[in-house]
């Protein structure tokens, strides 16, 4: 026996609220053949609170991949680096793509060192808003042909050298998890959130 109207409450992800579906089922239209309610009810089970898929991630396995560094320094590892060690590393491993001084423009890796804050060419000193991004990026992606091969001390040293080359720190500053987040980048004050919003005004 089919009810004239069956109201089915379907929980859509528990996020979009619920949807009422009215299923009109006329005995005459269907002949009198028995029609399973299942055949006219989508998602009759609804969604469970959780599907129970996946397995718990252990702190240990998260730590292996959790390599990001936050602007406040969260995620920075132990260790430290100096400008002089960074300069030697830069000369040995970075000049092939970034040029001898980092001020070169037409390089595969692009310009790294700004000579003035208002210079048009984007570089670390006139465009990068956070010093922590240097450590995060060098550690995850550099050098191009052997990403992830640098030790934490080497990454700190390269960070120190590049900050010094951009005249943001002096050559005696040691860069580590405490000092790096305190470095204020000159370009940070220029950054504003997206203000485009559709409509007729071109922004």
């Amino acid at each position: 026996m089919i009810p004239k109207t069956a109201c089915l409450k379907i929980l859509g992800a528990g996020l979009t609220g619920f949807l009422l579906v009215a299923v009109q089922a006329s005995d005459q239209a269907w002949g009198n053949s028995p029609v399973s309610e299942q055949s006219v009810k989508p998602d009759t089970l609804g969604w469970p609170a959780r599907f129970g898929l996946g397995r718990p991630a252990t702190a240990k396995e998260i730590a292996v991949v959790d390599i990001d560094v936050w602007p406040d320094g969260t995620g920075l590892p132990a260790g430290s680096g100096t400008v002089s060690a960074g300069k030697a590393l830069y000369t040995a491993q970075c000049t092939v793509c970034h040029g001898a001084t980092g001020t070169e423009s037409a390089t595969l890796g692009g310009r790294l060192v700004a000579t003035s804050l208002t210079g048009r060419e984007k570089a670390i000193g006139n465009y990068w808003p956070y010093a922590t991004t240097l450590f995060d990026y060098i550690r995850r992606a550099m050098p191009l042909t052997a990403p992830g091969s640098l030790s934490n001390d080497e990454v700190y040293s390269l960070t120190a050298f590049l900050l010094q080359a951009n005249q943001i720190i002096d050559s005696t500053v040691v860069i580590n998890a405490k000092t790096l987040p305190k470095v204020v980048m000159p370009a940070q004050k220029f950054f504003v959130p997206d203000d485009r919003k559709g409509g007729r005004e071109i922004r």
Partner: protein
Amino acid sequence: MLLGGAATAAVAITQTSFAKAVQIGIPEKAFGPDDPTKVPGAPPGELGTRSKFEKLLKSPSEISSRTPLQDLYGIITPADLHFERHHGGVPVIDPAKYELVIHGMVDKPTVFTLADLKRFPSVSRICFLECSGNYRGRGTNQKLSPQDICGLTSQSEWTGVLLSTLFREVGVQPKATWFLAEGSDAAVMTRSVPVSKGFDDAMIVYAQNGEPLRPEQGYPARLFLPGWEGNASVKWLRRLELADQPFMTREETSKYTEPIRNGKIRQFSFTIDARSVITYPTYPATIQKGWLEIRGLAWSGRGKVRQVEVSTDNGKTWHLAQLQGPVLDKAHTRFRYLWQWNGSETVIMSRVIDETDYLQPTLRELLTARGADTGGYHLNPITAWEVKPNGQVLFRPEV
């Protein structure tokens, strides 16, 4: 003998145990009989091939590869012609070893295998994906095709699990406002994305046009953010970390940001503004007098295309183009406009209006709003084409 000359052309016809011929390569001569009705054709194959007469190719550079927009029809980009942009090459990832970890400000830090992701309710959606650095029309070169100018946009039917489903599964905490998406390519590329986008319409996709993702598109699984700049749809996705602030990664600070007026730099400019481009007739096509159909694509990251207008007199007058259905949300939409070319020199162009009433601007209007030094991100100008009396069609740079 079937396919005469098979022994000398690089052909391989294998006999199955059922004695059926199976084509696994196509012999040179099978393509070119003068009369195809007099020679048996190639037998059924394991994998379809494109006609030898069609030369559909992406145009690669060191960092990207462009879709041949001028050679395609309809709205779906064949997966092997989808544009590419990557920051550390295309990695090889064994799907059996693939894992996605979601952690940070969640109740249940969880590891999902690819099989886990595929067990969740699946959603399919046709959407464009476009790189925000998709305009190469500044300068004086007129021998540029749509592929050269804006070939870093493509469209697919994407299939996967809604990110909101996974967020619910792991219990995203109310204080979480951003999440980091991290790829497992050699750049271990990262972007920060607002959690609101994750709950709105973000997906973790594992299929494209009915097949598993292509490696260049993030195999075996990627983030997909409808309507947003392609870089944020992180490929080869290995990790999502929920947090209460953006992470300020390199790709959202020193890259994918644009200088605007008053010395400011616009950041987290995710949405792709509306754009249209004529794909025929354009360079390198040559046309003849008489009737022809101007065809193109229009799309908006803010919703549906509302209308497309075409001008055949250098922007003096505009005419409504036909929108070819389906007109989908955040999707390439095909437009067409019937035109009788009288053989005289003119300029043709198109402009789109999306459902927010945004009108595609000129390059001059964009540079006026943002300043001349804005760089190359989020440039979506009206693109014009010169039609010469001899039928040659050339790109017409604006400024």
